[in-house]
């Protein structure tokens, strides 16, 4: 049994439960970041290092920062966070940090899930070959989806702002 996986699963469940139970959106975002970190550790323990890196970079790094921006822009009373709101996420994140230190220093075989499980980790090269070789059409469709999401977000957010005078810029819209 992989102890790293079990501890990360416990942290993920606890922090995700805390996300749903929070009253303020900023506190929920803090717990959700910890939850994504815990899932990244679980993926690492399963041998999916590339997906773990993507989880941290894209989910916790890009998508949740978008959420933080929007919560700050809406700016109601829910965006104020005191010192108390940091305690719970800090404890959970420290548990993850301790787990990472344990895996790095004391049990190097726990990282990557390769040794002790009788199965090799999937390398990013294999993932890239599958993504751009076998599933190239899926990657193209994902690119279309991202482009349409960009255009749609731009259009919706533009409508909410002050409407530009259509006669001023030659009716470009």
């Amino acid at each position: 049994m992989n102890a790293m996986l079990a501890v990360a699963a416990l942290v993920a469940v606890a922090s995700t439960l805390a996300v749903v139970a929070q009253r303020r959106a900023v506190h929920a975002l803090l717990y959700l970041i910890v939850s994504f970190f815990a899932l990244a550790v679980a993926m690492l323990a399963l041998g999916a290092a590339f997906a773990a890196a993507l989880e941290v970079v894209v989910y916790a790094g890009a998508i949740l920062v978008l959420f933080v921006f929007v919560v700050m822009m809406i700016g109601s009373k829910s965006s104020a966070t005191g010192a108390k709101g940091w305690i719970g996420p800090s404890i959970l994140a420290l548990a993850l940090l301790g787990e990472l230190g344990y895996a790095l220093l004391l049990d190097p075989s726990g990282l990557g899930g390769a040794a002790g499980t009788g199965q090799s980790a999937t390398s990013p090269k294999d993932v890239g070959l599958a993504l751009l070789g076998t599933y190239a059409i899926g990657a193209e469709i994902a690119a279309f989806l991202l482009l349409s999401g960009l255009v749609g977000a731009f259009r919706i957010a533009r409508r909410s702002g002050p409407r530009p005078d259509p006669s001023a810029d030659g009716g470009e819209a």
Partner: protein
Amino acid sequence: MSALDLEIALALAGILFVIGLAGMIARRNLVFMLLCAEIMLNAAGFAFIVAGARWGRPEGQAMFIFLLATAAAEVAVGLALILALSASPSLRLKDLDADEMRSGGA
């Protein structure tokens, strides 16, 4: 990967999905509902990764990348909608309550 690891990981994916579903049903704040949709998408992606790791195939991580693109597009459009709703002067949403939006919009 031992059978116990597989069970723990799949149970984690299922529990996270159920937590997200319960939050989506219980919470009425639009930001929280979008967060719960993220939790559910993430749990589904984790299930893909578990399956990919179980059989040692890269397809699980490839599907996770597709889910990542889907989640990014969904969050971009959803957050733009939330911003537009909160800024709309005709639809006075107090604290972005979805129920108020239903009754106020009619």
